[in-house]
């Protein structure tokens, strides 16, 4: 047993020292009727060689952007992860440590989280941020609960243009608490501010994603004004990369900023682990879900970090906690901290502009294909929706044969958009990749016209 030091000899000696006859003795409290009287029916044991061979085989049965030209996005993106990020998150000092309950022995993790909180607060233009949550969807749901607690009304309003997966998690979280979820109608590719006040009447929060699921920018300043008329807090769901260029939530007066931070140095990983973040104004600090790290001093006046405001949390306050969160995504947050430290303002802005430039080029060349058009006339950041002359599923199947994955089918999530594809561009794409996509689309559209 490579992972278990005790030998049979050790076991016998230890049993003797504790005065037990056999290992069975130690399980005397387990009623005999419930004991398992057979070995578990699972495979193994495998040697390390066998295990790596098996795992490599499973990995090879998955197709990744190494083997196809992929424009899949819609919340998770194939961005480059700098080598240093995985080297830092691969240090046992970080990845094998526990939640920093013993602060004096966990200053590395605690300071990294403090730096993460600062980076997120600065990116979003908010006062404070928490130590991370599971993903963007749960961050949004927790923010909705924060608003419900602050406003004491049982309704939230969420834009139809918010990621369908996020809205689904929101419903799961607030549904059993009797919180009504109203949807804010869209006008084309963005929320219609003119119809917001009615739909949001009496809502604790108006929740809008910017850029939204379609990649489009939302009219955040108008939405802010309309949300105020309805007496609602504004929760902005943002893409941290976009914030290097786009106005952060703090600038347009959002009360809470949440989002998915996967692109800050985490791989796609079939959708997890991801990185949720929540930032807000000081007035809501005590309602924040999850861990918060604060700086303090020891008796000699040396600066140090601790988990603070723990009286909000489940292990102290139990049923009256602000959330049930215990674990956060500390290691992914550490990766994001390394990532943002490497890129800095200039690097992140350069990256954002590169992605936006390639995305714009992609939209232009795709729109030039006969029979293909941009579905929405809104400014967009890293992704956009194109409409094809036939069902997007069919287009995807045809293009897959040419080794091209053109994007996410919008029809899976929105009625009336069956012919639409959400095309996402990352910094791994260049002009040649985009041209390949465009000629691939051109070919299948021409083919589709022939048949």
């Amino acid at each position, binding site marked *: 047993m490579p*992972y278990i030091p*005790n030998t049979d000899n050790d076991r016998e000696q230890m049993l003797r020292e*504790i005065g037990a006859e056999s290992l069975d003795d130690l399980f005397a409290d387990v*009623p005999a009727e*419930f*004991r*398992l009287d057979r070995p*578990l029916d699972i495979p*193994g*044991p*495998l040697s*390390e060689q066998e295990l790596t061979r098996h795992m490599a085989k*499973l*990995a090879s*049965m998955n197709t*990744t952007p*190494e083997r196809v030209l992929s424009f899949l996005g*819609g919340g*998770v993106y194939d961005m480059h992860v700098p080598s240093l990020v995985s080297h*830092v998150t691969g240090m046992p*000092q970080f*990845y*094998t*440590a*526990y*939640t920093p309950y013993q602060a004096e*022995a966990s200053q590395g*993790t605690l300071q990294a989280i403090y*730096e993460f909180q600062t980076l997120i607060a600065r990116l979003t233009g908010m*006062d404070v941020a928490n130590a991370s949550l599971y*993903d963007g*969807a*749960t961050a949004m749901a927790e923010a909705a609960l924060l608003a419900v607690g602050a406003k004491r009304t049982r309704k939230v309003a969420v834009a139809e243009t918010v990621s369908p997966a996020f809205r689904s*998690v929101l419903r*799961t979280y607030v549904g059993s608490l009797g919180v009504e979820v109203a949807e804010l109608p869209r006008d084309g590719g963005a929320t219609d501010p003119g119809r917001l006040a009615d739909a949001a009447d009496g809502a604790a929060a108006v929740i809008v994603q910017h850029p939204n699921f379609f990649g489009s920018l939302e009219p955040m300043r108008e939405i802010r004004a309309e949300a105020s008329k309805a007496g609602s807090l504004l929760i902005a769901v943002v893409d941290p990369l976009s*914030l290097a*260029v786009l106005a*952060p939530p703090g600038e347009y007066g959002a009360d809470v900023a949440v989002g998915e931070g996967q692109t800050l140095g985490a791989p796609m990983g079939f959708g*997890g*682990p*991801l990185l949720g973040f929540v930032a807000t104004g000081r007035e809501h*600090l005590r309602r924040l879900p999850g861990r918060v790290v*604060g*700086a303090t001093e020891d008796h000699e006046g*040396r600066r140090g970090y601790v988990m603070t405001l*723990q009286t909000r949390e*489940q*292990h*102290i*306050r139990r049923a*009256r906690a602000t959330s*049930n969160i*215990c*674990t956060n995504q*500390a290691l992914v947050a*550490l990766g994001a901290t390394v990532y943002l*430290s490497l890129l*800095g303002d200039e*690097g992140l802005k350069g990256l954002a502009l590169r992605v936006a430039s390639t995305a714009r080029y992609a939209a232009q060349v795709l729109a030039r294909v006969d029979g293909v058009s941009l579905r929405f006339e809104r400014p967009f950041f890293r992704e956009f929706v194109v409409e094809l002359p036939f069902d997007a599923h069919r287009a995807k199947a045809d293009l897959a044969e040419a080794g091209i994955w053109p994007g996410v089918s919008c029809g899976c999530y929105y009625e009336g958009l069956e012919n639409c594809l959400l095309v996402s561009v990352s910094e791994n794409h*260049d002009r040649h990749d985009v041209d390949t996509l465009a000629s691939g689309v051109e070919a299948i559209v021409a083919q589709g016209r022939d048949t």
Partner: protein
Amino acid sequence: MTGPRQKRDLREPTVFELSVPGRRGWRLPELDVDEVDPARAFGEENLRSEPAGLPALSEPEVARHFARLAELNYHIERSVYPLGSCTMKYNPKVNEDVARLAGFTRLHPETDAASSQGALSLMYNLSRHLCEISGMDAVSLEPPAGASGELTGMLIARAHHRERGEDRHKVIVPDSAHGTNPASLTLAGFTPVELKSGPDGRVDVDALRKAVGEDTAGVMITNPNTLGVFESRIGDVIDIVHGVGGLVYLDGANLNASLGIVRPGDVGFDMMHFNLHKTFSAPHGGGGPGAGPVGVKSFLKEYLPRPLPARDERRSRGVEYYMDHEGERSIGKVHSWYGNFLVMVKAYAYILALGPEGLRRVAENAVLNANYLQEKLKDVYELPYDGRCQHEFVLSASRQKAGGVKALDVAKRLLDLGLHAPTVYFPLIVKEALMVEPTETESRRSLDGFVEAMRRIAREAEEDPEKVTRAPVATPVGRLDEVRAARELDVVWEGD
């Protein structure tokens, strides 16, 4: 971290203090299309007015900063990490390696089934293995953490009762439960009813009988419980709750003690969560990511979050493994995608590496190691609930407290001696609690080292209590002022 005797200031400046304008840590590929003019592309009013204030550093500076921070952390590869209820076991390296294979890391969650058969088969088989290990009938891998699994379980209970037209709003939790239990059931819309533990630290069966009624939605039980003892009357507990139509949820935090020995499903639990980051050796990451799959008996399967990984040997859809989205009675999603997949990869690799015999040995050695420590420490620290323990046990520093040394002081002194502390002040039903869980990956030698340190501290508490109450002195910082932290709330760096 417990370095030279002589005090040196180990404080590492924040990354913001290290920043020097103009430094860069990354080079972007050359842009080969026209660069957008942000004002024209996004509209002037949509632009950021000033830079965020991210640090500017070169790669070696960033590397060094985080390497220095790493030095300030205790971790499992140093020595014993005996946090009770946290199952801090060694994290096998091969699991880290396989979870970094590009076929897993660069897999987009919208990838079609035919192009993700490796991941889907891994998820399907992991869920089957978890069923076999637990005696449950179906598993959702979606909950990204134990607390999320608890919430999922409670939402399932809610859906189950609601569908039967029953208004049951109370969930019973023993007073020894993890804080997440009452928090999770409250989030699911239930009201907690706290049940006082019996004199032996177990569920008080008579009190439970009195507490249940037609408004009881269920009970959340940790077994072995947080005192480290098996609920020997669990059969009665379950019968009582089932007798009034309630459901029994297992908080699976302590499953490590049961692998291959006893299966919660055979005992009669209706549902449970697994902590892949505890029992199945996925690392804790300094506080996440974890993974908290939920297992249920077949009558509750329809309520699980969708999609569920599924298998069709006849390949009627053209693929063997697929995601089954069917399920109108599902409670809905608890994560954007399928949960923490890369954590699942590690847990799956761990199960295969150990096999049936190995998993049983995990439980046996975890329990043996805990009993060994308990035996060697119970004469110097009070053991409020005597008897054999399972994977963990709870000591009390109440004897030391009489001399002015609290559980917290014992914990801090352990840090001075180069070891990590047990969980302190939990479970709440033990005064000055020191909750010790060594796990099976500790050798007898490291256990003896822990015993020696704990006995030395007990001695110091009598002979030189100040040595203990002043601790830690060998850590990078001394005891930190938490009151000040909560009062002054410096949670973001504003020093530049």
